[in-house]
């Protein structure tokens, strides 16, 4: 009981720490004084970040205009765009939560987490550029039409997020049920054994016995040849023995199929272009500086990727700590990890639904333009 509570507590602390580090590291970034207009929602560090990204955003128009005459201003513009991306991505949207949950649910590799973060941010930039290039440059569409396009793309993106979440929920939910069943199977012999001893032994030893019988249970399951995943009896030295009891093996995850799965999440998240990028691109276009706008958008994407990757990495390390702790407590440990995965999958569905319902991330471009 206390051990499993410890696992959970550690995950909690890690997540809170992740949030704190995220904010503090942004705080330590070496640029100017807080924007006075930040009084709007200046609540400590969050308010500060809010004010910073607003200040960066507002300075973009000046830099875009300046880069018309002055080539050096273009580099300042790119620098500011990057920083804006870093700060802006702390806010809603940009798929931090979806990507992080996806990585936690799937126990993906570090490398893949970073690649996925960068890929989704890259797609996001490219989608913004493509939408503006086709709609505004080629077709001369109005803001209303562009807003509508973005809105439709958004709905598709959120729908895909829900689908990915549901698929994960199904796969992980089954894993959780298997873990539950195994635990109940192994509980019975433990209790019989323990009841033969004194009450004192009962309270001290069951976890250990549970762990041993648990392994026995797994080996028996392996005997079922038609089980689709196929179980393995791992030795103690195999680090991921318990973490993978019902999931694909690491080699399998890193294979081509794994990448394809990851790609679907990246595309679903990346589809939705950032309103800020669209506005900056159209502003640049109005100044006959479309390509400067494209450069700024790509750098914004790079900045966004850095933040998303940082948060995703922290989420994954939280999971890793939890999994290391849970390994010490076989039966319930496995169950806890399975539960975390199910929770993460459920969360992706929740994100998708909330986004679709317009509850989260209110970046309504159509507020004034229909």
């Amino acid at each position, binding site marked *: *009981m206390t051990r*499993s*509570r410890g696992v*959970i507590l550690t*995950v*909690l602390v890690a*997540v*809170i720490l992740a*949030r704190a580090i995220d904010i503090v590291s942004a705080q330590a970034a070496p640029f100017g004084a807080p924007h006075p*207009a930040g*009084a*709007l*929602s200046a*609540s400590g560090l969050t*308010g500060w*970040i*809010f004010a910073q990204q*607003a200040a960066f*955003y*507002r300075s973009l*128009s000046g830099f875009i205009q300046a880069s018309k005459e002055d080539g050096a201003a273009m580099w300042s513009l790119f620098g500011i765009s990057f920083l804006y991306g870093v700060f*802006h991505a*702390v*806010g*809603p949207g*940009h798929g*931090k*939560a979806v990507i*992080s*949950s996806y990585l*936690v649910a799937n126990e993906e590799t570090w490398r893949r987490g970073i690649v996925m973060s960068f890929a989704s941010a890259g797609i996001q930039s490219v989608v913004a550029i493509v939408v503006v290039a086709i709609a*505004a440059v080629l077709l*001369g569409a109005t*803001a*209303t039409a*562009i807003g509508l396009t973005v809105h439709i793309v958004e709905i598709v993106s959120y729908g895909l997020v829900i689908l990915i979440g549901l698929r994960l929920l199904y796969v992980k939910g089954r894993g959780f049920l298997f873990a539950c069943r195994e635990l109940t199977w192994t509980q019975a012999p433990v209790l019989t054994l323990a009841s033969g001893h004194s009450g004192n032994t009962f309270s001290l030893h069951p976890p250990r016995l549970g762990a041993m019988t648990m392994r026995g249970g797994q080996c028996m399951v392996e005997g079922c040849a038609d089980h689709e995943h196929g179980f393995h009896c791992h030795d103690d030295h195999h680090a991921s023995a318990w973490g993978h009891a019902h999931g694909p093996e690491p080699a399998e995850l890193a294979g081509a199929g794994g990448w394809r799965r990851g790609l679907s999440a990246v595309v679903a998240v990346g589809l939705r272009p950032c309103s*800020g990028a669209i*506005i900056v691109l159209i*502003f640049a*276009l*109005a100044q006959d500086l479309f390509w400067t706008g494209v450069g700024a958008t790509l750098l914004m994407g790079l900045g966004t990727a850095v933040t998303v990757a940082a948060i995703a990495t922290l989420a994954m390390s939280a999971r890793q700590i939890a999994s290391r702790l849970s390994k010490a407590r076989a039966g*319930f440990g496995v*169950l806890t990890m399975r*539960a*975390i995965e199910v*929770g*993460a999958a459920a*969360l992706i569905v*929740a994100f998708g639904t909330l986004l679709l319902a317009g509850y*989260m*991330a*209110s*970046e*309504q*471009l*159509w*507020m*004034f*333009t*229909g």
Partner: protein
Amino acid sequence: MIRHACSCTSAVLWLFLFLDRAEAHPHVWVTFHSEVLYTADGSMTGVRHAWTFDDMFSAYALQGIPHAKKGQYTREELASLAQVNMDSLKEYGYFTFARADGKKLKFSDPGDYWLEYKNATLTLHFSLPLKAAATAKAIQIEVYDPTIFVDFEFAKDKPVSVSGAPQCLLTYDLPHQPTPAEQLRLSQLDSDPLDASSSYGETFANKILVKCP
């Protein structure tokens, strides 16, 4: 035990949720002038706004609007956009919230609206008549976006005025630094978020106060 583990896990995952919530950020900046309209007998009839959008949003809104001369837009050329603006703003109650002695006032559809293009920015002019003229000792008008997607800011020069009631006293309040109580509420936003109907954003609203004898 299992239930305990599950509930704690969901708590952890809800924390993830907040990584992506709570901080909306503006993409539209509006500096505004507002005129509170009174009749000679001292009852308020409506508000007349002039909202100037930031240069980037102005360029965005102007995208694809046909115009005869590059860099210039006439009021007629912008008429359709002004119509779109007013139609879209209806859903948000024109971001204008009024109370007479604490009682909420209702606005009817706006009239007399047009867009003006000057110094690379768009200014939206419109008047918002009250459904029924209001007589009260104190009338409070707030202009803000509860979702903070639009950042409203009083114009620097003479941001508010009253017309038709020289006896009334006009004051206005800038969004203020949060008080300790508000600061506390802000710090709890992550664990106890605002629900959709919350009017917490109004703490940071631009307030116009008209006091009549």
